[in-house]
């Protein structure tokens, strides 16, 4: 029996991409309106009692002042409490977690959480540097976003013999999935050869081992589980969540073949939800880089330590496989607008659990819709400087 004190009654996201014509505020406004419209029985703006806005790197990329006003001020909800969340790559899912806590505390009945990131107002390479070199003025000076995850990949290859071909298979899978998802930034398939032949960015990552730099926004409306019926007959419940903040600098971590923060966040989430990996029908986990998905398989308990390469090779995590991972295209194809990603993953999983994807009725949506057998979905992010932060959310369509 999961925690299930909070229900998701509406979700929305914008198509991810390079939205040179949309400002940060415009993306928030657009997704907010889609979000209101997504609630089956409707919701009035006046019913929303609090908000959380997840934007992870705007101070590096966009220069907007960091406060809750970024949300309240542009959607006409001035006067409600809004918390701005910045927590590295898990910003969106941590904003979501805090929104759940706000409802579970009993202080708020209906709340709003939006994630939005404007990353392309800067050239991609400047943005990658800005994200990666923070932490210490000198000690982490040459860090880039790929350099946060690449040393772990090098070590995993060294200790377990994971290959670049196996890494490439993750990109092949997720790029294919992206072609089925209208919200995905990238809409093209790749082969293993394409990945291996793409330009080297940060050994061992070639260009196609990396997610794109993307703008996007996503949101959810949450309410007390017992009030959900007012808004929808098909709520999705938050069965559990976990969050872990670990080391500050990468060199402080002992084992580079695993993200300790993921392991700890997952432990908390599984315990709170009363389920294990075997109960999960579909996963949206943090594949910022190909090897990261392989490590996530192990850290989230879907295979033994060191066997992640075998799992991707087995095909079991494909849409047609036993446990589909990243049906949306993942970060690799769909994109990673930092503060938005976690909430967008939750949006995809809500649609999957509800069967909303198949209602799109196209051949593509038929392929993208997974079979919901147990009624549980798992969302995961990991990141932040030194990759020391992770958030895991378990959603369920089950009422028990």
């Amino acid at each position: 029996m999961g925690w299930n004190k909070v229900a998701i009654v509406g979700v929305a996201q914008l198509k991810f991409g390079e939205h040179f014509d949309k400002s940060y505020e415009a993306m928030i406004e657009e997704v907010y309106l889609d979000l209101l419209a997504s609630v089956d029985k409707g919701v009035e703006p006046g019913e929303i009692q609090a908000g959380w806005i997840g934007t992870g790197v705007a101070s590096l990329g966009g220069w907007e002042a960091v406060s809750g006003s970024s949300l309240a001020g542009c959607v006409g909800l001035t006067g409600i409490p809004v918390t701005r969340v910045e927590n590295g790559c898990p910003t969106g899912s941590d904003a979501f977690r805090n929104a759940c806590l706000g409802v579970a505390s009993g202080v708020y009945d209906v709340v709003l959480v939006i994630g939005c990131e404007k990353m392309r107002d800067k050239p991609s390479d400047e943005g990658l540097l800005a994200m990666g070199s923070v932490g210490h003025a000198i000690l982490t000076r040459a860090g880039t976003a790929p350099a946060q995850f690449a040393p772990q990949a090098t070590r995993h290859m060294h200790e377990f013999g994971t290959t670049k071909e196996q890494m490439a298979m993750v990109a092949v899978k997720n790029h294919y999935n992206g072609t089925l998802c209208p919200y995905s930034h990238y809409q093209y398939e790749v082969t293993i050869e394409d990945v291996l032949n793409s330009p080297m960015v940060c050994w061992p990552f070639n260009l196609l081992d990396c997610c794109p730099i993307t703008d996007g926004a996503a949101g959810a409306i949450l309410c007390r589980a017992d009030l959900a019926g007012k808004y929808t007959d098909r709520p999705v419940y938050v069965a559990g969540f976990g969050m872990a903040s670990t080391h500050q600098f990468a060199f402080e971590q002992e084992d580079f073949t695993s993200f300790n923060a993921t392991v700890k966040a997952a432990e908390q989430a599984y315990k709170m939800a009363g389920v294990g990996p075997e109960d999960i029908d579909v996963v949206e986990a943090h594949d910022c880089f190909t090897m990261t998905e392989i490590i996530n398989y192990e850290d989230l308990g879907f295979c033994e330590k060191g066997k992640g390469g075998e799992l991707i090779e087995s095909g079991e995590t494909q849409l047609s496989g036993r446990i589909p991972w990243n049906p949306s295209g993942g970060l690799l194809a769909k994109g990673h607008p930092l503060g938005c990603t976690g909430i967008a993953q939750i949006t995809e999983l809500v649609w999957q659990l509800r069967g909303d994807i198949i209602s799109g009725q196209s051949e593509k949506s038929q392929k993208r819709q997974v079979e919901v057998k147990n009624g549980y979905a798992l969302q995961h992010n990991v990141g932040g400087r030194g990759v020391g932060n992770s958030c895991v959310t378990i959603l369920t369509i089950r009422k028990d």
Partner: protein
Amino acid sequence: MVGIVGYGTYLPRYRIRVEEIAKVWGSRGRGEKSVNATDEDAITMAVEAGLNAIQCSGIDPSTGIDAIYLATDSSPYIEQSPTGRIKEVLGMGAEVDIADFMASPRASIAALKASVDAIETKRVKNSLILGADCRPAEPGSDLELTFGVGAGALVLGTDGIMAEVEDIYTYSTAFVDRWRGRQDDFVRSYDYRFTREYGYVNHVVSAVNGLLKKMGATIEQFQHVVLQEPDGRVPREAAAELGIKKEQISGSIFGEVGDTGASSVLIGLAAVLERAKPGERILAVSYGSGTSDALSFVVLDEIDKNRGRRPSLECYLKNKEYIDYPKYMRFTGFLRQSGEELRLPVPPTSPYMMRGSAELYTLMGAKCTRCGFINFPPSMRKICVRCGGTELEQVRVSKRGRVYTYCINYYMPPPLEAPLPLIFADLHDGPRYEAMGTEMRPEDVKIGMEVELVLRRLTVERGVSVYGYKFRPSRGID
């Protein structure tokens, strides 16, 4: 009695054949010269030579050295002493005196003389002399064919002397043969046919003759003669005039490294000290800007004590990689990569940098007295991240370690250069440490390889040179 109790040198890895330079400009040349990597300057080279000399002396730098004198014509500054930073990196305290000697390639001997005086007055017990030069040469000029780079260092003291300073004589006039004005980017030189005779040869011969007369000695009494080498010709001419025989000329490496300026005589001395025998006499002669110093050293029994212990000059001479002219232009700063420079998030003179000196310059860790884990960086760790203990003590960490993992950046903004390895290495008796790799090509980087931390120049911002540690493949010598 004052003398040399330790010596060391440093040469960068890179060389360019003089012919490679000459043919760009339509002329010819021979020999080769040393070239600094983009992240090296006179200061980084002086540090490494200094470390070698200190290790040779066996003295603990945190307690046993009372003064550092730096001699260079390539200081990053017109006003500001870089020696304060050198002193910090070498692990010496605030009570250690510093001084900067400039304005002439002869400055290292001026520093040596001042040191001898300070030791003889007993104000200083042991001093460290550093001579380093990294002078830019104007493309297409004669000096481009001869200017090399390098550093030399001596520890002077009264105990455990390897070579005693016997006597000194200086001959100095207002002669101008090479100069660099305040507005000049490069050193200029005047009519070589005039200056070689009236400059170098005249002053060197006068200085040596002055010393011999003062000592009542003859040139035959010196088994080794080390002459400053601004080129390959004038030392031979001066030697011929002084009756110095070919077998007496020692430490001549101009053909392999070029004119190393303020470090020339110190490097030449080191070459001699590597093989001199007790009882032998060394004549060392400097020249620069119309001044020549002639010094006599007597080699003592202690000379054998540290042979083979630290990177020898021979190691630096042999450990070399040739580069071509475009790369030389890039290394020496004439070719700059396009793009916005990566700027520090705080000014280089920020208190942030001062607070961080224990991790940035002196390489300390914060060891937990409860569980033994060495936390890093020490200025940011007052509580042990492993056990929560609050009693942490600062310890020096080893500069050497093994690569645990790495990645390699293929796109970097200036002033960084791609491909750029980022190395995570486990330091011996120390924490895991992350730093950029230097002198490493992608194919060179391997998990498990031995690396060592070396001080390099990271950037120059707002006119301030900012230094930091990078991993270099270990030279295999302790």
